[in-house]
């Protein structure tokens, strides 16, 4: 469905850097051997471990631990800082970012994980948002479309063949989420204000959030090509950026 010739998941080069016109996406599996996970725990902050401790299920707990540990490992490659030295702050709507001490590198990032698969977006000097969703049947899909999707999205669903509606639903959802996360809000706030979208199967699209000045806060969206069971999308400020996709090593 997505034509994405630029999206090949490569092993990262040793001399990794993200330039101003790139957006890097990392893909990583979160279910890892217990011995690795215990080591990963050591690089997390007290805040992160507190959040991890709140999950009722061990699976959620360990996936959160690995997701945050890999985030630190990935960012440390760009910043030349030890992973446990990184400090994060949380925006009013929960979006994590690096503290001002690391502001000089102008590194922006975002992460998402669903059912054991994590995606990380890293960019320099532009906000990014990313979302991955595991495709599964949704009994409430019609109501959610009615309630939260824009007029153009609804129209797309009306004309779409039944056999791929499920994937379309998740693609739409991932795009909304990625866009909302790029703006630092998250879908909990205003999914229905996302009315500038969208012809969901177009791989790239420029969006303009009306309340921001158009020069600075244009976002463009792309679908990411994933394994069959997942869909994903990325949003980043501006439209002149290209993607580089890295596969995080299995034993890293």
């Amino acid at each position, binding site marked *: 469905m997505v034509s994405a010739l630029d999206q090949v998941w490569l092993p990262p080069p040793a001399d990794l850097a993200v330039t101003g016109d790139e957006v890097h996406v990392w893909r990583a599996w979160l279910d890892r051997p217990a011995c690795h996970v215990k080591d990963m725990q050591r690089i997390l902050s*007290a805040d992160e*471990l*507190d*959040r991890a*401790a*709140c*999950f*009722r*299920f061990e699976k*959620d707990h360990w996936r959160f631990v690995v997701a945050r540990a890999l985030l630190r490992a990935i960012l440390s490659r760009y910043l030349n800082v030890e992973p446990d030295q990184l400090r994060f*702050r*949380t*925006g*009013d709507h929960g979006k994590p970012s690096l503290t*001002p*001490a690391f*502001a000089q590198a*102008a590194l922006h990032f975002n992460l998402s994980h669903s059912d054991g698969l994590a995606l990380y977006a890293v960019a320099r000097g532009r906000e990014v948002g990313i979302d991955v*969703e595991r495709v599964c049947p*949704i*009994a*409430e899909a019609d*109501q*959610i479309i009615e*309630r*939260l999707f824009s007029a153009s999205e609804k129209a797309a669903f009306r004309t779409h063949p039944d056999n791929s509606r499920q994937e379309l639903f998740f693609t739409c*959802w991932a795009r909304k*989420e990625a866009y909302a996360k790029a703006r630092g809000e*998250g*879908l*909990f*706030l205003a*999914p229905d204000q996302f009315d500038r979208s969208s012809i969901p199967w177009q791989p790239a699209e420029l969006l303009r959030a009306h309340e921001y000045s158009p020069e600075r806060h244009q976002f463009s969206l792309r679908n990411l090509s994933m394994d069959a069971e997942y869909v994903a999308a990325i949003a980043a400020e501006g439209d002149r950026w290209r993607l580089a996709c890295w596969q995080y090593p299995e034993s890293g």
Partner: protein
Amino acid sequence: MEGTFTGPRDKVERWLTGIWEEILGIHPIGVRDNFFDLGGHSLLAARLFARIEKVFAQSLPMSTLFHAPTIEQLAGVLRGEKEKDSSSWTSLMPIQPGGSQPPFFCVHGGHGRTLTFGTLSRHLGPDQPFYAFQARGIDGEQSPHTRIEDYAAEYVMDMQAIQPEGPYFLGGFCSGGTIAFEMAQQLRAQGHEVAMLALLDARRVVRQPRSRLGRRVLIHVGNVLRLSVSDKLEYLLDKVRGVTQTAKHSIKTRGEAPSARDILDRVIDCAEREYVPQIYPGRMILFRPGEQPAEYYLDPYLGWEGLAAGGIEVRDIPTGSGTMFREPHVQTLARELRASMEAGKNARLSAGRDEVLRSGQRA
């Protein structure tokens, strides 16, 4: 862990429990389980609210879950119980309101969050009521207090709505320890008994030589909160730039207004540095992490020495700083805390005759 499980108690809660179990794929779910701790995320929330809309014909925003993340609270919203406006704001957060023991009241750490207390409460068991305080200003709507004394006064007032008379069992985590210390002072000054004052991983923050500048920063931060969001940054950069290096470092951000939580953290930190503790007439217990940051390593009393006339009891929890609320250390903390509460109750029994005498005089 399972001790605090509460099943649904009416039709609305029963219906919500069924939906949560179906959507989250988990069984059983208690009415006080937190949606996000169960692995809930935005798509699951969308499914939940789609179902709610169908049955209740109420179209609630998904952000409702931030204020009402449990079945119990969501049922309250659906029954039409109004969310609290600022005039009925209370700092008190019931973490576990049931039980026959005298309640334990515990003050938040620097970020004003009470998230960390759930696990401790579970380990204290279903018979131990547990209340936390949340800091005014955490929602970014109200201005936070800028003095420790004001935090303490508000919390004492809200606490007395639940428990009007002593003996009180108080605790505080991190900066919350300083607030709990001041609450105990105010309660004693009102003639109340404090059966336990527990400082959990709470270091006394030493007054800095630059504290007059710190005060100025504090005033500015207070002012910022009264400004509109768009004016905040400009004001901050104007006033804070050049006042102190540290404040500048922690408040100035990359062209964004600081988040409410970051501001609150900063305000409480400044308030703590400004606070001049008087000698507390009673006794206090310090729950100390085994591993302390280097600058406190040599001080077994974490800076509190000489500030409690009744003595300071130190209980070591074998953990690093900031981690005593996590498994497995939290189990040791719960055990030690329970022992201290027992000791507080027994001390009260043995002093019972004095009590009778004093209350006789008051009457």
